[in-house]
């Protein structure tokens, strides 16, 4: 988290235009909260208290309200994550096809340590998530925005190599 981040507002220039396009889709500003948080996370990598305050400001709601919403949805990061954010589905249909082994392989191959922790080089955060909605292609894994299917522990080293 660089010092610069503290001083540059998120919603300027093209990002502000993007915000206006989104605002036009809803009858009130509050409804634009989820998409606005998505932009903020894309720009900042995570949603800090400062970011929540900034989002609150542009949408005319309180920072506490924004926090209430951020904490409800699991995809908004409330702390910084690695450059590669890996979500492995471990719900029942994936579990019976060996998803736990996939998690283990990712943790070992990336040096991330524990699920939810970030590797020391800042490159990897591995998390277990509930159903990704691709049960027939077990185990599905989201690496950042890339949706990978049929991942097995054997395929993990190659995936890690690709994103390293």
């Amino acid at each position, binding site marked *: 988290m660089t010092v610069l981040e503290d001083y540059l507002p998120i919603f300027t220039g093209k990002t502000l235009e993007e915000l206006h396009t989104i605002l036009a889709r809803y009858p009130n500003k509050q*409804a634009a909260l989820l998409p606005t948080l998505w932009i903020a996370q894309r720009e900042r990598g995570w949603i800090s208290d400062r970011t929540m305050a900034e989002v609150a400001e542009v949408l005319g*709601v309180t920072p506490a309200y924004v926090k209430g919403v951020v904490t*409800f949805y699991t995809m908004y990061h409330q702390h910084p994550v690695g450059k590669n954010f890996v979500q492995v589905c471990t719900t029942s249909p994936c579990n019976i096809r060996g998803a736990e082994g996939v998690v283990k392989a990712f943790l070992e191959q990336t040096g991330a340590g524990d699920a939810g922790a970030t590797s020391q080089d800042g490159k990897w955060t591995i998390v277990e998530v509930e159903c990704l909605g*691709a049960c027939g292609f077990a185990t599905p894994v989201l690496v950042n925005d890339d949706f990978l299917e049929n991942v097995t522990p054997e395929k993990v080293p190659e995936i890690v190599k690709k994103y390293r």
Partner: protein
Amino acid sequence: MGFPHKPHPKETVVLSQYFGDADARTYKGWTKRGGYQALAQALKTDPVAVTDIVKESGLRGRGGAGFPTGLKWSFMPKEKKKAHYLCVNADESEPGTFKDREIMRWTPHALLEGTAIAAHAIRAEVVYIYIRGEFTEPWTIMEQALAEANAAGVFGTIKVYLHRGAGAYICGEETALMNSIEGKRGNPRIKPPFPAAAGLFGLPTTINNVETLAAVPHIITRGAAWYKSLCLSNPKSTGTKLFSVCGHVQRPGNYEVTLGFPLKDLIYDMCGGPPAGRTLKACIPGGSSVPILTREETEACLLDYEGVVERGSMLGSGGVIVFDDSADMVYQIMRLAKFYAHESCAQCTQCREGTAWTTKILERILAGQGKPKDLDLLLDLAENMTGKTICVLSDSCAAPVVSGIKKFRGEFEAYLAGKRQVVMV
């Protein structure tokens, strides 16, 4: 059909006809395949008449509840005084279900066409398509398709927007979904008022599932009588349905069959049954929220709304999870309970506490720390979790626990007697 996409001879391919055909994703490719003709036809028809056709067809909601679609549409105010909304539920997150994802990935225009027809029927001027946050690929494809459709003027004066979820199973519940679009926590609302009276932003709203809407264009062009004729068992269940099959089968995937089709044939003939040398033990036929079936019940089950109920479960979303004899049912039920504990929105006590305690008790049974009365305690908890909350997430957690203890009691008792133990991962 499994993957790669090649229909099995026993499938009735309607919705999945163009799965795997990348050209069908484009506007040009879709119109070349007869796309948007149903919309043109619907726009020339009075909204009430369109609703009547869908009513007549017998189409029922494919998201899980199975509510008659035409009837739902007819609940919208007859006299239009306020703005009307249509919400498309593409928050597919019921464990075991992955059909809407395939519809959006391969036939985004089928969904958009059905959406436009529904918006016409309920006289909505704004549509929100709520896509779960994890569906990055379907999102990109839908965004592209929507841009093309807008450029071609498909929607006329109707505005269609995509809205991205952010990781919350409960947002698939219709009132939670509306709250999420309004920029709120995804807490379900108390009904009534029902969405048709006071829904999104307090205005009349209809919410339909992706698969339901994708079926609508076919009903318009081929007629209600044709759709009604697609029926193998109970006349109250008509049309085709995509079944997502996963777990212990050799060929998992989405298979489209006429309602009333035998579950046995789906699992054994189409999906190849369990891996070699193993046998079927249990099956969850309609997504993780419905009761578990034993092997005998599974093999006798017909896949329609009534047929599955007859065997003691529900058709739900059509997510078929298959367990073979290698599956530890106690562990699997704990894993499902853990899902609901994680996904509870926590506003109702029975659900917040019930899902968490159910998971804790199952975990201690698995760890060899179970107490003799734990099974009764679980059943007592489940009873208090059923029919007592704002939405059915709590009931959904109770369903596999109750049916699991009833049907696989021996496995639970083996843990309690110290004859069995797993290492928790």
